[in-house]
């Protein structure tokens, strides 16, 4: 597996055995379709607390679609349909009396392209607490979130400056801070570093290592090295073509990252991680 430049010693870190892991999400036979076209089907896996879980795979394999199921962002697309179940701490995330707004409060999201609001740095971080009515000691909350996102030292003297004046990497860390300010349990990251330069990417990855202690992180990435560097568990998705040529994403293999990158049990995973495909 010399094709993937990964420090294997680091990858072989011990994960707690199965029975000591707390399951945050239990996904069972999940499928997503847009206007009746299946984008993703038959996905079953578990996401564990305080783990970084990475979804890798070629373009169009449904990994971004999948991550958007966890905070019900697919609800915002009228044509999207979700079947199967996702249990969040044993509760059906798509149950009839679940409020998607409550879901998104507990399960935050960072997007592919930094999307700060056209407001000040302070107001960006304070937005979540304000809409959720968590306005006690707002200044402290904003400071704490910015510190957790490793942005505080760079912006503490210009909190009133516009967020759009920050660099791309800073904007993305601001979006992470914005997400942390509402104290979620889970952070979903949809290719959080794909629009950033290598130095900014490294900072985001370091941040994921830090945040893992307090949060559960799910990250979609295009970049295999990134998955290998940051993730405890990795899920590899691929594409099947149906009879009429429609592309549907499937889960090929889900295992400890070290296993996925060194001894994958599926030929397709091996081809992908060694760079022979994708």
């Amino acid at each position, binding site marked *: 597996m010399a094709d993937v430049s990964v420090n294997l010693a680091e990858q072989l870190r011990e994960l707690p055995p199965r029975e000591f892991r707390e399951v945050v999400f239990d996904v069972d036979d999940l499928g997503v379709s847009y206007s009746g076209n299946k984008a993703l089907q038959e996905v079953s896996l578990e996401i564990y607390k305080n783990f970084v879980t990475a979804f890798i795979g070629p373009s169009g394999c449904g990994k971004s679609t999948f991550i958007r199921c966890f905070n019900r962002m697919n609800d915002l697309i009228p044509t999207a349909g979700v079947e199967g179940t996702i249990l969040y701490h044993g509760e059906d995330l798509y149950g009839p009396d679940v409020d998607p*707004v409550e879901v998104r409060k507990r399960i935050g999201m960072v997007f592919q392209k930094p999307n700060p609001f056209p407001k000040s740095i302070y107001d960006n971080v304070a937005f979540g607490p304000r809409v959720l009515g968590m306005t006690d000691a707002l200044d402290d909350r904003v400071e704490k979130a910015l510190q957790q996102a490793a942005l505080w030292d760079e912006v503490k003297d210009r909190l009133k400056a516009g967020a759009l004046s920050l660099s791309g990497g800073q904007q993305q860390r601001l979006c992470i801070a914005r997400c942390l300010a509402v104290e979620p349990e889970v952070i979903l990251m949809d290719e959080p570093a794909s629009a950033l330069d290598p130095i900014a990417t490294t900072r985001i990855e370091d941040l994921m290592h830090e945040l893992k202690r307090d949060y559960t992180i799910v990250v979609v990435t295009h970049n295999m090295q990134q998955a290998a560097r940051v993730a405890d568990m990795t899920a590899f998705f691929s594409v099947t073509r149906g009879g009429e040529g429609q592309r549907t994403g499937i889960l090929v293999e889900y295992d400890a990252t070290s296993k996925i990158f060194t001894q994958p049990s599926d030929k397709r995973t091996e081809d992908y991680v060694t760079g022979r495909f994708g």
Partner: protein
Amino acid sequence: MSAAAGSIRRGRPRGLWAGRLFLGFLATSLAIGFLTLGALLAQVFLDGYKWVDAVLFFEPPSADPLIAGARPAILATIYLGIIIIVLSVPLGVGTAIYLEEYANRDRWYNRMLEVNIQNLAAVPSIVYGILGLAFLVRGIGLGRVLLAGGMILTLLVLPTVIIAAREAIRAVPDSIRQGAYALGSTKWQVVWRQVLPAAIPGIATGSILALSRGLGETAPLLLVGALTYVSFNPTILGDFTALPVQIYQWIARPQEEFRTLAAAGIIVLLAILLTLNAFAIWLRNKYERRW
């Protein structure tokens, strides 16, 4: 000279005359528009500038052109402007928010609404005047008052406000809405705290341009009963005139002096409208955002 250099310097380019002809056509079109406007402005300005004085601003109209002013008309135009803004901005922005953020485009009635708003923007203003006369003045018995005039001008500019507000709302990128939803905002919070503030510069620009269109209108006001001779200050529920109506009346007078007075009135009206438009452009440039 080498063969290679020769090959790119060969003869006259193809289509040279067609290109020149087309350019000439474009320049002519531009010149016709510009020169007409320029001649008109120059003519009016030379005719009237001496009469733009304190009398024009502070005196009521009179049968004697030397002491006749346009105070009631100028005041009424200001009142009309306030009524237009107060009524058309909330209604127009509300409609735009519904159409952009809430309406399901798969429903036939929403599509019909959209098409009809486009059509309304193209309806001649006199038709609005007839509607105002039939519905506001007689139908609900408002009478020939300033408020009726303001309301009919509001209806006239409403489609323009809606279209401008929709464009401003549509220009707010979806990533902003998604970011707000992902933090646990409700739809109301997303619209009210993110989309609308980000769209305000565009909405303001469109509203001001619509206002300046409304203030220049004469025909619908004549139909809802703007009087041509009002010597007292207007009130919301009283008789009224307006600057364009006053100008129209002065031009119709036989005496040469009144035409000069009309030119002075036109200068004032143009100054108001051009100031509003310049303000709108300034606003747009200042707050224009690149996402």
